[in-house]
């Protein structure tokens, strides 16, 4: 019988002196200045675009539009949850450095860093809109921090070559990419938003609120087709993506992917406004033991978007959302 290879033979502990030298060297290095196009705004732009189902399809409208003719999206929005199956395409984006792939096609026009403020009134003054606070908080819950972000604007320039690379990396080789739009631009404006953080023991909740982001795209494009590509990137099979894309009003819809680890997602009402709630377990990565639940609540009302991500009980989160004033 042939001897079995010792496949563990190379595994070992790094030399302690090497580990310490490297640790010291890292601590002596300043944080690198991320190139603006690859920074948070680029990620935000990509995230907004993907979530909107227009994503990288910003680069692939079917018609070359006039440069001075734009279509404004999302004057009002509604959220729609779409389940992402295990092992499907969107999960693969975790291994792809999207900002690096498209970063140099995202130009930061205006960037303002968030600032901590001392009160809701100060946040209102900083952000330029009246900040709403929950009248109802779960027992033992306290406000821990308020942050107001500034206005941020990015311009995304179409690059069909990069898009093809991304789709290839995602294994979506059957998606056709019209070349006509190469070089066209879209503008994404994220207006000032306010983030409020709450704590209840070791549970946390983060609430974001602010005006709906503005997306200006070249006029004359086929939004349903762009949405279909966005849905494919989320992992929907081609026939389902096509059917779904035709039914959705892409001028007002933001698609929220529901991960396979989520245990529940549903449409909810916050006041009279429809929203989306997603819930799932928090699994300790070491012990694999469930140690609580997370939830995400998204809704829109009166030209604003709201989101609460928390580890509080969901009913408490919903009560907080319903008591905003």
């Amino acid at each position, binding site marked *: 019988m042939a001897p079995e290879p010792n*496949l563990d033979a*190379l595994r070992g502990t790094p030399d302690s002196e090497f580990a310490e030298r490297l640790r010291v060297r890292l601590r002596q290095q300043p944080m690198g200045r*991320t190139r603006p196009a690859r920074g948070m705004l680029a990620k935000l732009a990509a995230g907004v675009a993907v979530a909107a189902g227009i994503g990288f399809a910003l680069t692939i409208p079917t018609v070359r539009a006039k440069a001075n003719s734009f279509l404004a999206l999302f004057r009002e929005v509604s959220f729609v949850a779409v389940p992402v199956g295990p092992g499907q395409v969107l999960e693969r984006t975790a291994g792809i450095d999207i900002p690096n792939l498209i970063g140099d096609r995202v130009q930061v026009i205006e960037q303002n860093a968030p600032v901590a403020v001392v009160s809701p009134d100060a946040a209102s003054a900083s952000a330029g809109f009246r900040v709403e606070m929950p009248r109802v908080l779960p027992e033992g819950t306290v406000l821990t921090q308020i942050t107001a972000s500034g206005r941020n604007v990015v311009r995304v320039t179409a690059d069909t070559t990069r898009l093809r690379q991304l789709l290839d990396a995602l294994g979506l080789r059957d998606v056709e990419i019209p070349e006509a739009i190469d070089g066209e631009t879209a503008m994404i404006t994220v207006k000032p938003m306010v983030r409020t953080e709450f704590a209840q023991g070791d549970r946390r909740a983060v609430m*974001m609120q602010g005006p709906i982001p503005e997306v200006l795209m070249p006029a004359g494009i086929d939004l349903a087709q762009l949405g279909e590509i966005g849905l494919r990137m989320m992992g929907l099979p081609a026939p389902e993506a096509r059917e779904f894309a035709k039914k959705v009003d892409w001028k007002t819809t933001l698609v*929220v992917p529901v991960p396979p680890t989520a245990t529940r997602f549903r449409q909810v009402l916050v006041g009279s406004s429809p929203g989306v709630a997603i819930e799932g377990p928090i699994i300790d990565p070491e012990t694999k033991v469930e140690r609580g639940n997370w939830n995400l609540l998204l809704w829109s009302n009166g030209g604003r978007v709201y989101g609460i*991500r928390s580890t509080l009980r969901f009913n408490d989160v919903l009560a907080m959302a319903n008591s905003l004033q």
Partner: protein
Amino acid sequence: MAAEGTMPARVMGWISREPVDWDAVYAEHLPRIYNFFRYRCGNVADAEDLTSTTFEKAWRGRDRYRRDKGAFSTWLFTIARNTAVDHYRARAPVVPLDEAALVATLAATPEDTTATRSDAARLAVLLRTLSDRERDLIALKYGAEMSNRDIAGATGLTESNVGTILHRAVQALRERW
């Protein structure tokens, strides 16, 4: 996977920008990255150099990432794998003479060399006989000790494809051992 590594957290990243505990990250991931390179490159010196490069790249770009453990690990290994690719691209594809000789010997009479080389040295040499992709996966599996599912997530391959490639690679190592 922890909740922080799931899609709402990634897509709605604007909701949370919690800081990364870099000391904890360093303590947890240094051995995994180091061992990934031990399997990827074979020798300690290269493994230390490439581990340093990986962490320096991550450290410089740390403002771009949240406290998102699952995604963080994937991000770090993406840097490590790219670093390995750059390393091999920059080097001429040569095998040191003594190792080349050992490879030749192994192909002929593996039992003769077993006594003269440690398992580690023997494995290092045999890994060089694998394809780049096989070696990448072996390094993720046995060096970084990732599950087939995590490897699939990191590489874009399906989990069954990962299993098949690893099975063939291990089979090849078994035959040459």
